[in-house]
């Protein structure tokens, strides 16, 4: 049987297995949790004032011993998995005036046992809801962003990833693609999830690192609500 991987490309980098370099004790409960936090922060505009974490499954039962709570908050503070400040992230959150709260929740059978729902809040915008799972060895997946079911793998380094909220009009999405080509980016793949008249697209690209200005300019395009770039995330 021909390999599926030879066509669509492998699913894992060697460094998904060999790594991450991290502070202990658990790759899924500490490093993975930190990465989900990083991703939530990257998806949210600006610094949240309040973050609520709903811990599900094994995250709920053993989070304390693994410092899952400190790692999640560390991720919200953009700490890397190898950052020793994770140990004292609560102090740093207080300094940045980020309020945080942990709740035990049952999100349902369909979620991986290491899953967290994160609600980020800020006075000037709608709260954002993100569900992320830590799937082993520090690898993570974002499975829900607001009302959109997604499948966003948290591997940094392979692609530059853009998250785009738009009006689900193909014409407008084509204009965005054209603009990305103009900026010299090569689009590897686009996954789009639609709910009513809204859609969220995850665009994986090769190319240079886009400047913040360039990313923000994309939001001025017709039908494009918001654009977030995940390029700054690294293992």
């Amino acid at each position, binding site marked *: 049987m021909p*390999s*599926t*991987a*030879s*066509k669509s*490309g*492998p*699913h*894992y*980098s*060697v*460094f*998904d*297995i*060999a*790594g*991450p*370099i*991290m*502070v*202990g*004790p*658990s*790759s*899924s*409960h*500490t*490093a993975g949790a930190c990465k989900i936090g990083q991703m939530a922060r990257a998806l949210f505009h600006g610094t949240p004032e309040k973050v609520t974490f709903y811990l599900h*499954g*094994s995250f709920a*039962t*053993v*989070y*304390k*011993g*693994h*410092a899952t709570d400190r790692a999640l908050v560390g991720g919200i503070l953009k700490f890397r998995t*190898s950052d*020793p400040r*994770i*140990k004292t992230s609560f102090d740093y959150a207080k300094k940045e005036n980020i309020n945080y709260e942990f709740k035990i929740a049952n999100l349902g059978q369909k979620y*991986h*046992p*290491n899953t967290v729902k994160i609600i980020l809040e800020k006075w000037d915008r709608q709260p954002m809801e993100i569900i992320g799972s*830590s*799937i*082993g*060895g*520090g*690898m993570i997946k974002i499975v829900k962003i607001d009302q959109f079911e997604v499948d966003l793998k948290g591997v940094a*380094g*392979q692609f530059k990833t853009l998250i785009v909220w738009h009006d689900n009009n193909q014409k407008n999405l084509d204009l965005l693609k054209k603009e990305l080509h103009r900026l010299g980016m090569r689009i590897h793949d686009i996954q789009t999830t639609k709910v009513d008249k809204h859609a969220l697209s995850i665009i994986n690209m*090769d190319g240079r690192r886009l400047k913040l200005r360039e990313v923000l300019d994309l939001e001025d395009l017709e039908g494009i609500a918001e654009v977030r770039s995940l390029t700054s995330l690294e293992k």
Partner: protein
Amino acid sequence: MYKFAFTNSEELLKLCKKHKAPISEIVIRYEMEYSKHKRPEVLSKMKKTRDVMEEAIGKAIKKPEKSAFGMAGGDAPKLFAALKSKNKMLSSPLVNRAMAYAAATGETNSAMGRIAAFPTAGGSGVVPGVILAAQHDWKISEEKAIRALFTASAIGIIIAEGATLSAAAAGCQAEVGAAVAMAAAAVTELRGGTPEEALNASALGLKSYLGLACDPLGGLVAVPCIKRNMLGASASCAASDASVLGIKSFIPFDEVVMAMKNIGKIMSTKLRETALGGLAVTKSGIMIRKKLGLPPLKPNEID
């Protein structure tokens, strides 16, 4: 088209044969193709990983620290001291050293020190234990040790593709068990074994760890994780020895991986990193729960 992609050991072996190359070389090219990075970048990233491994080992041997709640720590130096003492050990000095290094990595991890998760933090001791001990005792170059880490990663990729590397999904077989399979293949290539022998060593190693529960006390990566890593290092070496002696696993590696997945599905969640079964609910486990301030277990939570 990806020329060096593989998802199971059959595909990996085909690539080794086609390119007349060891597993490590195929995996280096796999990563170059995947990440679009050049060879020196890929190699230097793994060198960084190896350096972190060495640092983590050194930390626990030179400056032993008791982990939270005094459950672990300070055992690696005992194993290390045995290398210099005249006491006869049953295992070879290499195995003794591999166990010392594996325990040291686990102890550093438990104390929230910096480690390389390989493939996970819970199972992070086995591979550095075996590979760095071999590097030391066989006086091989750092470059060769780095290549061996790529071989180990190949096995991790196959397990991630076919099953999982998450103990919350499939128990400790997916962490320490996976690490044993990874180290067994890597050390087999390092000693001059063929790709077939390396994969066979993985099959032998992983088979012995099938069904292993993830039942850490209080949910902390400490007990029994550190000592499982220590003994896992020894098991990897034994699996490699058996493989190069021509002892073949009747079950090929890919099928062992499928069995691991199957067992994970059947395994109760109480044995999957929730601290609700096995060692976690023994008298000692319940004492640790109390110390941690975890809610007491309800009678229906323990079978």
